[in-house]
C-alpha cells in the first residue's frame, strides 16, 4: 500500500462522512457546511487523479462561491430547524429504504466491485492540465464554449433585470 492509497482512503472516508452529514443534520447551516466540505474534498480527489484544473475549479466555484451564496441566503432568511421536515409516515420510511437499498446494490456492483483492480488510480498526466483544457476549449470546442458563455451572460443580465424589476 503506497502513500497515495492511504491518502485516497482518508479523503474518501471524509467525503462520505461529510455527504452523510448533509442529510443527517437538522440545522440547514450545518448541512450547508458539510456540503461545502464535501465539495472541497472532491476537489482534492480530482487533484489526486492529476485533474488539477477541474479540482481547482471545483474548489473555486463550488466551495468558494456557490456554497457561500447558499450560506448567505440561509443566514439572511434565518432558517432554523423546521419541525415540518420531520417525516412521520412509516410507509415512506420503508419506501425510502427500498430505493436506497436498490441504489446501493447498483453502486456496489458497478463501482465498488471493479475497485479491486483500480486501487492505484492512474491517468494521463497531460490530460487535466490547464494547457490541454485550454487548447481543447479554443480549438475543437470553441463554438460550444462561446455559446455557453453567451448563455451565461444572458443568465447574468436576466437575473439583474428580475432583481431590478421587483425592487
Amino acid at each position: 500500500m503506497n502513500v497515495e492509497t492511504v491518502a485516497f482512503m482518508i479523503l474518501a472516508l471524509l467525503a462520505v462522512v461529510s455527504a452523510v452529514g448533509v442529510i443527517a443534520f437538522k440545522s440547514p447551516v450545518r448541512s450547508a457546511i458539510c456540503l461545502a466540505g464535501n465539495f472541497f474534498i472532491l476537489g482534492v480527489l480530482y487533484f489526486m487523479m492529476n485533474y488539477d484544473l477541474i479540482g481547482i475549479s471545483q474548489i473555486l466555484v463550488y466551495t468558494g462561491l456557490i456554497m457561500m451564496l447558499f450560506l448567505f441566503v440561509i443566514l439572511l432568511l434565518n432558517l432554523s430547524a423546521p419541525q415540518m421536515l420531520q417525516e412521520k409516515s412509516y410507509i415512506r420510511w420503508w419506501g425510502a429504504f427500498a430505493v436506497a437499498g436498490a441504489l446501493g446494490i447498483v453502486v456496489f456492483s458497478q463501482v465498488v466491485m471493479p475497485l479491486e483492480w483500480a486501487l492505484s488510480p492512474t491517468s494521463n498526466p497531460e490530460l487535466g492540465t490547464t494547457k490541454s483544457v485550454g487548447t481543447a476549449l479554443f480549438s475543437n470546442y470553441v463554438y460550444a464554449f462561446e455559446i455557453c458563455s453567451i448563455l451565461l451572460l444572458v443568465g447574468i443580465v436576466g437575473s439583474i433585470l428580475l432583481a431590478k424589476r421587483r425592487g
Partner: protein
Amino acid sequence: MQTTTILAQASEISGEDTVWWALLRIGIIVGFLLAVVPGIIWWERRLLSWFQDRIGPNRVGLFGFLQPIADGIKLFLKEEVVPDKVDRLIYMIAPAVALFPAFVILATTPWGPNTLLTPIADVDIGILWVLAISSLGVYGVVLGGWASNNKYSLLGGLRSAAQLVSYELAMGVALYSVALPSGSLRLTEMVQRQFEPLYGIEWLQSWFILTPFGLIAGIIFFICMVAETNRAPFDLPEAESELIAGFHTEYSSMKFAVFFMGEYATMLAFSAIFAVLFFGGWSPVPLNLEYLANLAANNGMGWLSSALTFLLNPWLAPVWFLGKTTLFLTFFIWIRATLPRLRYDQLMAVGWKYLLPIAALNFVVVAIWMMYGWPAMFAAFGLLILVYAMYVAVVRMPRAKKFGPTLTLLDIPANTDQTIEVTKS
C-alpha cells in the same frame, strides 16, 4: 538564459522528490508562519504607536519583542466564556476554519530557486490556487458570526461575505492580466518571466510592477488583498464603532487568539504573493545582476563582479523574498494608521464600479500588447484615458453641476447667538 544558471547554482541540494521532501516543505512553511506571527503583531503594534506619536509596547524583552508572547500566554490562560445559545459545534470549528486558508494559501508560492525546498507543490494552477483558497477565507468569519447568536456578529459575518465576493472578482482579473504575459499559471514560471529584460533593456529585469499594465494590476491587487484580509480601511466586518468587534464579539481566550493569528498569517501570505507576482519574487533588485557582473568583470572591476554574484547566491533568495514581504506588511500597517474606514456603500462602489472595470480594461490592454507590441499598448492606454476624460467632461461634470447641491456657509461672526444661515445653490 540567466535563470537556468541560477537554477544550476541552486542544485546544491538535490535528489529525488520523495514524500519526505514534501513533508519537509510543508514543515518549513507551517513552522515559519507559526513562528513569525508574534513578530508581525509586535511590528504592527510598535509601528502603529510610532505613527500615533506613542511609545508602544517596549517593556517585555528587548524593544518589547516578547510582548506578543506574553499576550498569547495571557489569552491562553484566560477563562473561556461561551455564550448560552450558540451553535456549539460551529462555534468551535469557526476559528479553525478561519486559520486553515492562511496556512495553505502559500502552498504554491516559491521562496527561492530550489524546487526541492519551495514551493510545496509546483502545480500548473498556482494562481488559481491562491484565488480559490482566499475565497475560502470568508467561511471562518461567516460561521463565527452566525454561530455566536449575536446580531452584531451576524451583521459582521454578512458584511464580510458580501465584501469578499465583491473584491475577489477584481483580484482575479488583476491576476490574470499578469498571468497572460507569463504564459503560465505556475508561480515559479511567473517569477522567472520577471527575470527577462524590461523594454528590451538588457540590464533591467521586467518586474511586473515596472510595466504600465503591471502597475495598474498591482495597485488593484493590493487594494483587493487589503479588502480580502478585512484590514483597515476595509475592516467593516469588525467595525468597532458600529459592531463592537463584529464576527468575534463573542469569542474569548484561545478561540479569539486563533482568529487573531489567522488574520496576521493571511496578511503575511498575501504580502508574499504580492512580492512573487509583481516584485520579482526572490530577485533582490530589478537589475540583471548576472549581466552587470559580467560587465564589471570585463571592465576589470573584479570586486564589484564578485559582490554582484554574491547577491545571486540561492541561499540569499529567501532573504530578499522575506524582505519584500516585510515591506508590504509595513504597507498594510501604514494604511491602517492613515486611512479612515470606508462607508459600506463606498466599499461596494469602489469594488464594483472602479476596481473591476479598470482591471477588465487593463486585461484587454495586456492582450493588445501581447498581440501588437509596446506602441499599440501605449496607444490603447492613451485611448482609454481619452475616453475616460471625455466621459468625465461630457457625462459626469454636467450631471454633478445639475444635481449636486452645494452648501455655502455664510460669513459667520466669531461670537453670536444667531443661527447660522446656510444657503443651497
